[in-house]
């Protein structure tokens, strides 16, 4: 297993990656034409023509290497615990900040996960800190306040666990869903921060599906779910990941923050009062800084 990236390594890697990707995009899409190894561009590309097709290939190769290093270098941390078996759940997460490729909504770089058999889904929320990083991709970390998905948690076989992890100067709330036994097929939720979810189908094939954001999928009133035994929580900073089921003094109740799924890019929070938002059309629908007022 590779060593996790240090902060400095990560910073340098991301800088090189984004610069290289920008150059690659410019080479690929100068006025809409693609430059191939054997072709010629009709116009002078903004990023400058490669000296030879092999330079383009080398650029692609280097980006691939950086991508791989991102994948192997992202930390894998104990984030939750299964309420059915007590098994600890370790999951990858880029805790340095939201500017890592792990958080790229359209092309997340994440290693294969080793999860308990009771793992069902992963959603989450991120309370933004005072500074939002600038990154050239769309990041969708959820709302700022933790929530549950009623159509999942309403299944008798499913329970969820909320926990806390610091991501840079932000505070993240991963919410793991567990099932015992697995219900018949129901559409899950896109894995936290990504555009799809993966699962084993009835024939044991590893397949993916995707869902659109629905307002009904965001229930921020957690107390009834805790009191009914469907939602458990892990105290912030608890290294032992002890599961707790009491609503009294639960730190996840009554939190302030944006109660809609955020779209973050280029240091901006693209806000909307409605959770039904087309990521493509949201650029830029409205703009506000991370320190601005929420909806």
């Amino acid at each position, binding site marked *: 297993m590779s060593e996790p990236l240090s902060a400095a390594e990560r910073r340098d890697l991301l800088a090189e990656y984004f610069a290289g990707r920008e150059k690659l995009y410019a080479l690929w899409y100068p006025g809409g034409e693609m430059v191939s190894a054997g072709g010629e561009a009709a116009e002078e590309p903004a990023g400058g023509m490669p000296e030879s097709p092999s330079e383009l290939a080398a650029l692609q190769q280097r980006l691939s290497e950086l991508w791989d290093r991102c994948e192997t270098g992202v930390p894998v941390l104990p984030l939750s615990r299964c309420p059915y078996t007590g098994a600890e759940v370790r999951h990858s997460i880029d805790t340095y900040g939201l500017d890592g490729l792990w958080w790229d909504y359209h092309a997340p770089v994440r290693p294969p996960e080793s999860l308990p058999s009771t793992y069902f889904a992963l959603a989450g929320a991120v309370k933004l800190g005072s500074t939002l990083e600038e990154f050239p991709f769309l990041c969708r970390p959820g709302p700022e306040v933790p929530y549950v998905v009623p159509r999942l948690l309403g299944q008798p076989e499913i329970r969820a666990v909320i926990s806390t992890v610091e991501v840079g100067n932000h505070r993240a709330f991963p919410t793991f869903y567990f099932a015992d036994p697995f219900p018949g097929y129901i559409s899950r939720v896109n894995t936290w921060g990504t555009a799809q979810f993966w699962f084993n189908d009835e024939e044991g094939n590893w397949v993916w599906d995707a869902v659109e954001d629905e307002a009904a999928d965001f229930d921020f009133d957690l107390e009834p779910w805790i009191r*009914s*035994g469907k939602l458990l929580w892990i105290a912030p900073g608890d290294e032992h990941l002890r599961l*707790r*089921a*009491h*609503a009294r003094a639960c730190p996840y109740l009554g939190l302030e923050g944006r109660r809609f799924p955020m779209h973050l890019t280029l240091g901006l929070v693209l806000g909307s009062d409605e959770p039904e938002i087309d990521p493509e059309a949201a650029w830029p629908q409205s703009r506000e800084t991370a320190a601005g007022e929420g909806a």
Partner: protein
Amino acid sequence: MSINTSPADVALSLQIGAEDLGPLFVDRLRAAWNSSSPLAPELERYAAGSRQGSEGAAQVFAHPKFRTVATIVTQPDFRVFHRTGGGAIPLSIFGAYRNRAMGTEALVAVSPSFNGSYLLQYFPNQGDYLDWWVDTIASKVEDSTPNYLAPPVSLESLAYILHAVDAYRRASLHSLLSYTPTDAPFITVRKFLETMTRSMESMDTRWLLPAFLFLTPGLNTIAFHPRPEHMEPLADNDFLIPTRNERTGEDIFLFGEAGRTMGVEFYRSWILSVGFDTALVTGEGEKVLHRAFLAPTALGNHLISLDTDSAGNGIVNHQPLTSSELRRKLWAMLKADLAAIPAAAAAPARRPSVATSAVSKPAGDDQGASTANRCPYCGNDVSPGARFCRACGKPMSQPAAPKALGFCSGCGAKLEPGVRFCGECGRPIG
């Protein structure tokens, strides 16, 4: 001695007096038994031919299912042992047994009955057995309830928490008996620890902690070393809130959300508990597979499953289950356990002691003691022409080569070797 078909899931009930066990199993059946048989102590004590069976014994013996039941309970290769009691129920035990060599999924539950007799209840499959078990023991609960004691929890912490649940009842009773109603029941830390020691020493199963300690089989084989850090879940999980009595300055525990909720739950609706373990029976003895304790209440069936970590420390998984969840959990446990039964024979059977005086055979007894054959595997007597040894289940003859057994007497279809039912009409063969 009686035979009846009980309602619901029990296919057959046999009530056998203790005085009839020897005549039935030793004299008539010439059964062998292993040390895991619940009847072993009685059969060991019995000298063959020393008693005449009652009139009902012949009736039981003639029942078509009796031999199956008898083989299962005398030579189990798998058993579930239960201790019931706690709360308001007197102590009792019962076991469930299975013998894979019988080629059936049947289980037989054996429990002591009135006047020293034994009640044998036959279930044709594990599903029926579980239905009966859940109907008899569990609470009918269909709504989920918070798991204030989510896994994993150390055995020591569990003890503190069970005592906290008891402490709520103690505080409530104190409030009642002293005519001092209160919205904030509490217990002093000193009293909490003091009563916990007395509770554990008392084994008074009217309280939850002693019920758990006494009813759960084999608990004494698990390391138990309480230390102060094991009390942390009391506060972390909101069972007890440490504070100070403003009036006396004494350290006290107030009851938190979990302490109140589970305290009221058990105070008002806990009536009984059962501790049980499952085990394989092998030639080397019993191998325990699962060990658990169940405390049903009006809000949930609290199932506490015990295990040990790599250092031998006790770890528990507590789940408050609905009725259907409990049945599903027990089904999965039983299925996994039964799958672990090896195909080889169970523990070597004890042969019955030889009679010192001849016993006249009752009329109609077609299982006569005089035999010309002995089982080459276990040495037990085998009736002439028997296809299987009744003691160990091994086949008495192996065909040299597959051959057709002939034709079905029902429909005339040709029969393949080894079939038990005709493939054309379903008629049983042989």
